[in-house]
C-alpha cells in the first residue's frame, strides 16, 4: 500500500474567494450550495471540473466556484462547452444557464447540443423571468405575464423546457427545485453519473422580479398535492398521504385514488420509456385549472446507450491514425505531383 492518501475534498474547497453577489433570498444560493456539496463526493480531482456559463444572474455561478470556469457570452455556453468537451473529454464540464440564456438567445445551440449528446452536465436555472435586465418576461413565463416590457401582459406562449429537451432527443432529462436540497443533490449526482448530456431543469425562485412563481410546488401547504416525485420502478403517487396515483388509460393519463384501483393498474415509472416520458413532460398545466395534473419532479428519461458526441468525435481521430498512420507534414505539403527546377 502506498502511504499517500488522496486528499478528501470538502464543499469549502469548491468555494472561490469571490463574494457571492446574488440578491439576498435568491434561489441561486441553494443551487450553489448543493453543487458545492455534491462535488466533493464525486471522487474527482478539483482541477478536472470546469463550469461554463452564459449571461444572466445564474451565469455568475462560475465565479463562486473554485474550479476552472468561464463566464462567457449570452446563450453560447453550450457551444463553448461542446468545443471544450470535444477536445478535452477527460474533463468534467458543466454548463450553467438560465431560461433566457438557453431558450431565447441560445435556443439554437441548446437544441443542437442535446441532439449531439456531448457528455456535459447542464444546470438550467428556470425562474421564468429576466432577472439581470430587471424583470422582463422570459420564454418560460406564463402567457399574460405583466412585466415592464409587457404592461398589458405577454402574448407569447411559453416553452415547456422538458418537452423541448425530449423533442431534441436529450438522453437525460430531469427536473428539481431550489427549495428541496436533498432532491436537488440526488438529481445533480445522477446527472453527473449519466454519460451524455444531462439536462437538469431547476425551478429557481427570483424573489425580486418573480417571487413565488413556483410556490405552489415548493411550499409545504401545497407541495404534496401539486407535485409528483417520480422514482424509478415505483408507482407515480402524490397527495397528502400519497393517496393519489396516475394510471394510463391507453395513452391517456388519468388521476385515480389508489384506494379505487388495483396496485397493478398504477403507472410504474420507467425512465427508459421515451413515450411515457413525453406524456409526463406534458403534465404542465396551469395549477389553477380544475383537474390539472401534478407537476413531475425527478428523472423523466434516461438513455445511457447513445454514444456521446465526444466519444464519436475522437474515435474518428483515432481511426484515422490507425488507418493512415500519424500524419507526415512534409509529405502533406509536397502532395502527389511535384517537379524540380534546376
Amino acid at each position, binding site marked *: 500500500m502506498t502511504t499517500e492518501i488522496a486528499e478528501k475534498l470538502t464543499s469549502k474547497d469548491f468555494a*472561490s474567494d*469571490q463574494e457571492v453577489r446574488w440578491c439576498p433570498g435568491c434561489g441561486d444560493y441553494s443551487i450553489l450550495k448543493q453543487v458545492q456539496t455534491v462535488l466533493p463526493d464525486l471522487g474527482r*480531482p*478539483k*482541477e*478536472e471540473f*470546469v463550469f*461554463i456559463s452564459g*449571461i444572466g444572474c445564474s451565469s455568475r455561478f*462560475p*465565479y463562486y*466556484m*473554485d*474550479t*476552472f*470556469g*468561464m*463566464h*462567457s*457570452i449570452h446563450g*453560447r455556453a453550450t*457551444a*463553448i*462547452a*461542446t*468545443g*471544450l*468537451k*470535444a*477536445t*478535452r473529454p*477527460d*474533463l468534467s464540464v458543466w454548463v450553467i444557464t438560465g431560461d433566457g440564456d438557453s431558450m431565447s438567445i441560445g435556443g*439554437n*445551440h441548446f437544441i*443542437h447540443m442535446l441532439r449531439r449528446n456531448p457528455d456535459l452536465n447542464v444546470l438550467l436555472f428556470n425562474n421564468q423571468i429576466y432577472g439581470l435586465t430587471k424583470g422582463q418576461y422570459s420564454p418560460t413565463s406564463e402567457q399574460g405575464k405583466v412585466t415592464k416590457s409587457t404592461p398589458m401582459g405577454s402574448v407569447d406562449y411559453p416553452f415547456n423546457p422538458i418537452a423541448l429537451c425530449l423533442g431534441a432527443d436529450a438522453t437525460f432529462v430531469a427536473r428539481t427545485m431550489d427549495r428541496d436540497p436533498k432532491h436537488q443533490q440526488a438529481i445533480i449526482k445522477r446527472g453527473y453519473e449519466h454519460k451524455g448530456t444531462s439536462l437538469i431543469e431547476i425551478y429557481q425562485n427570483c424573489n425580486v422580479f418573480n417571487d413565488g412563481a413556483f410556490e405552489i410546488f415548493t411550499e409545504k401547504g401545497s407541495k404534496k398535492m401539486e407535485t409528483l416525485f417520480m422514482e424509478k420502478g415505483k408507482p407515480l403517487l402524490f397527495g397528502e398521504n400519497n393517496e393519489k396515483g396516475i394510471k394510463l388509460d391507453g395513452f391517456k393519463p388519468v388521476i385515480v385514488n389508489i384506494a379505487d384501483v388495483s396496485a397493478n393498474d398504477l403507472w410504474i415509472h420507467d425512465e427508459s420509456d421515451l413515450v411515457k416520458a413525453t406524456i409526463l413532460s406534458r403534465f404542465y398545466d396551469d395549477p389553477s385549472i380544475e383537474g390539472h395534473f401534478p407537476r413531475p419532479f425527478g428523472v423523466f428519461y434516461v438513455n445511457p446507450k447513445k454514444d456521446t458526441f465526444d466519444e464519436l*468525435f*475522437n474515435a*474518428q*481521430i483515432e*481511426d*484515422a*491514425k490507425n*488507418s*493512415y*498512420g*500519424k*500524419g507526415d*507534414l*512534409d509529405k*502533406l*505539403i*509536397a*502532395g502527389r*505531383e*511535384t*517537379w*524540380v*527546377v*534546376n
Partner: protein
Amino acid sequence: MSTVQEATLESVVIRFAGDSGDGMQLTGSQFTNASALFGNDLATFPDFPAEIRAPIGTLAGVSGYQIHFGSTRIHTPGDMCDVLVVMNVAALKANVKSLKKGGVIIANTDGFDAKNMRLANVPEGKNPLEDGSLAEYDLKTIDITKITRAALADSGLGTKEIDRCKNMFVLGLLYWMYHRPMANTIDFIKSKFKKNEAVMNANLKVLEAGWNYGETTEMFANRYQVAPAKMDAGIYRGIMGNQAAAYGLIAASVKSGLPLFYGTYPITPASDVLHELSKYKNFDIKTFQAEDEIAGICSAIGAAFGGHLAITGSSGPGIALKTEAIGLATMLELPLVVVNIQRAGPSTGLPTKTEQADLLQAFYGRNGECPVVVVAAQSPADCFTMAYEACRIALEHMIPVFFLSDGYIANGSEPWRFPSSSQLQPITVEFAKERKASDDKFMPYFRDEKLSRPWAVPGTKGLEHRIGGLEKQNITGNISYDPDNHEYMVKLRQEKVDKVANYIPDQHIDTGSNSGDLLILGWGGTYGALKTATLQLIAEGYKVSHVHLRYLNPFPKNLGELMSRFKTVVIPELNNGQLSKIIRDKYFVDAIPYNKIQGQPFMASEVVKKIKEILA
C-alpha cells in the same frame, strides 16, 4: 499531314467556358497541371456561378476557368485571353468581352443550336457564328458533340455519358496546340474511373481524338511552344489558396505540437478550408461543423481554453455573426485564429465574387475598444505562409488573429516552391505549470514581456481560475468595475497588439527602387496585378515601386519611413477605400485611393493606366 507552322510564345492566356455541367473546371485544372509539370510559371482563376446547377444553357449557368502560363514569371491569371473555348452560345456571350482582338475562339457548334440561342436570349437569326459579329476574332467552329458521339459510337455508353466526355476533346486539342504532355491527364483518368472501365476508356479515347483532330485537320495553321519558365531552383507543386491555407494551419499545429480544432459553418468561398482540413484527422486535426457561425467560433473558444490550436473560419456574413465572440476571445486573452475568405458584400452580396471589403471589419468591427491582430495573404501559395503566421502570433501572444484571404486567391492556383517543415519558423507554446497549495496564488492575468498571459489549461492542478467577458483586474483576473482599471486594460490590450510589431518582419519593397515618384501600396489578393503593373511601368521608365502589406495590424515598424521616400502613395484596393483610410489616419500620408468594386480582380492594364494618369 497538314502544314502547321510552329511558333514560340512567351505567355498565353486561355479561358475555358461552358455550362456548369460541361466540366470546364476539370479541363482547366488538368491543363494547369500539365503546364506546371512541363515547367511553365502560371496563375489560374476559376469563375463559377453562384448556383450549383443553374438552368442548362443560360448565362447564369456559365462556368469559366482561366489559365495564364508562360516562359516568364507569371503573377496574374491574365487580363484578357488569347484563346477562348466556348461550349455553347451563353459561354460565348458571357466571355467574348474578355478576349483580345484577333484572339482565337474555339466554339462547339452544337451549343449554338436554336434551343441554346433561346436559352441565352440571343434573337433568332443572330447566330454569332454565322452573322459576322465575330469577324475581329479567329473563329474555329467544331461540332464537338457530333465528333465525340461518333468516336464513342460503339463504346456501349448512353448518349448522356458520351456527351460528358466532350471536355476531354477540348483538352486533347489544346494539348496538341500547345505541345503539352498528356501523361498526367491519362494517369488522372485511369485513377478517377478505375471502377468503371467503359467510362475510363471513353475519356481516354476522346482525349486522343482531340489531339488527333488538331494533327489531322487543317483547321489550325499554328502550333505553339511555350518554353519552361526560369523559376528559382527548387521543388515545386501546384497549389490553390484555400488548400494552402489549410496546410498552413496544419503545419502550425504540427510545429506547435498542439492538436488543431476548427469550428466552422459552411459558407462560400471558405468551405474548402473545412473540406481540406477534414481529410487530415490523422494529423490530430479536429473539424467541427457547428449549427451556425456563432457556435463555430464559440466551440473554438472552448477548444482554446482546453489547450488546442483553435481556429474558426468563414466569409463576411459569417464573420459578422462571430463578432461578439471575437470580443470575448479578446477579453479572455486566449489564442484564436479567425479565417476570413472575403467575398463581395454587404449582406449576401456576390458570394462567388471577390472583394477586399472586410478590412475595416477585421480592424474595428466589434463593440468597445477591441483591437486584434490582422494578417493577409497576397497569393494562393502565400495563404500557407500567412495562415501559419496567424497561428504563430495567436499562440505566442495569446491573442485573437484575423487571417484574411479572398475568393480570388482562395480559388486561384499557382506553382509553389514549398518549404520543408524544418524551414518553418518554430512556434513555442508553454502551458502554465502545476502549482502546489504552498505556492503563491496563481495569477491568470500575469504578463510576460509580450504582455501575454499564461495559458492555464483545465486539468492542471493548482491553476483553477475563472475567466470571462467582464472587465478584468490586471494580474489577478478578478472582475473589476474600477474606472481607472478599465482604461488601463483597454490601453494594455492595444499595446499588446502593438507589441506584435516586434515579432514580425520589416516591410520590404517588392518591386522597384527604394525611393521614387510613386509608391503603389497594396495588400492581400491584388499582389499579382499590382506587381505586373509595376514591372510594366518600370519597363516604360516610370519611377514606381510596389510595396505589398501582409501584416496589417500592427503594420511593420518601418512602413511610415518607407512611404516617406516616395512623392506620391497610391493605394489600389478592391473596396471603397479601406486601407487608405487607415494609412491616412495613422501616418498622415495623403495617399490616393484607387478603388474597384465590381467583384472582379484588378487587371494589370487598368492599374497601369490609372498610375499613368496620376503621374501625368
